[in-house]
C-alpha cells in the first residue's frame, strides 16, 4: 500500500503542485507537514494502519499457536486493522481524484 503513496510523492516532488501533495519523500514530508496538514495526516494514517496490522497479526498468531489469546480479541484486532486500511485507501483515492481534477482545470 505504501507504493501508491510514494507514487503520489514522486508527482508532488516534480513540482507540479506546490506543497499540496508533496507526499512521502523525506525532505518533502518534513516541509509538507509544516505547510500543509493534509500530507501529514496521510502519513500518520499509513503508520497507524501498519501498526494495527502488526498487532492483528500478532494476536492471530497467538491464537494459532495455542497461547492464551482469546479468539474475540484476535477478531476485533483484525477488524480494526481492516477498517483502518479501508479508510486509508479511501483517503488516498480521494486525494488522487482531487489531484486529477485539479490537473484537468483549464486556466
Amino acid at each position: 500500500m505504501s507504493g501508491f503513496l510514494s507514487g503520489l510523492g514522486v508527482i508532488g516532488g516534480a513540482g507540479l503542485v506546490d506543497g499540496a501533495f508533496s507526499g512521502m519523500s523525506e525532505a518533502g514530508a518534513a516541509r509538507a507537514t509544516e505547510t500543509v496538514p493534509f500530507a501529514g495526516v496521510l502519513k500518520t494514517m499509513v503508520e497507524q494502519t501498519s501498526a494495527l496490522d502488526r498487532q492483528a497479526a500478532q494476536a492471530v498468531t497467538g491464537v494459532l499457536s495455542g497461547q492464551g489469546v482469546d479468539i474475540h480479541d484476535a477478531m476485533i484486532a483484525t477488524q480494526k486493522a481492516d477498517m483502518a486500511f479501508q479508510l486509508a485507501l479511501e483517503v488516498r483515492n480521494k486525494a488522487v481524484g482531487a489531484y486529477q481534477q485539479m490537473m484537468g482545470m483549464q486556466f
Partner: protein
Amino acid sequence: MEVTTALSDALGRYLDLTSEQMKLTASNMANVDTPGYRTKGFDFEQALMQQLNDGSTADGLLGEQTTVMNVGGLVSRPDGNNVSMDREGMQLAKEQLQFRFGVELLRDQYSNVMSAIHAEAK
C-alpha cells in the same frame, strides 16, 4: 512478487494440520467397536510450531508427515479398545470451529490484498 502475507502462509499450514487432525478423529470414531484399537492423535501445537519455524517451503503444502502417536490417559474397555466417544465428539466440534476460524481469517487476508489491487481513484 509478494502477494501473500506471512500470516496467510501460517493460516494455510493451520488449515492443513486441522484437516489432518480431522482425519484422525474420523478414523478413531469409525473404530469405536474394533477390538484392540488404540486412539490415535498428534500434538497439534507442536506440529504447528514446527511447520511455522520450518518456514522455507513457501508452497504451503504439508511437507512431511505429522508424528501420529497413541493417546494416553484413556480407559480401555475389556476388548482392548480405548476410544472415548466424548473425546472424539469434542475433538470434532473443535476442529470444525478451528477450520472455520482459519478460513474466515484467510478470506479476510486475501480480500484486503484484492481491494488494494483493485483500488481506483474516483
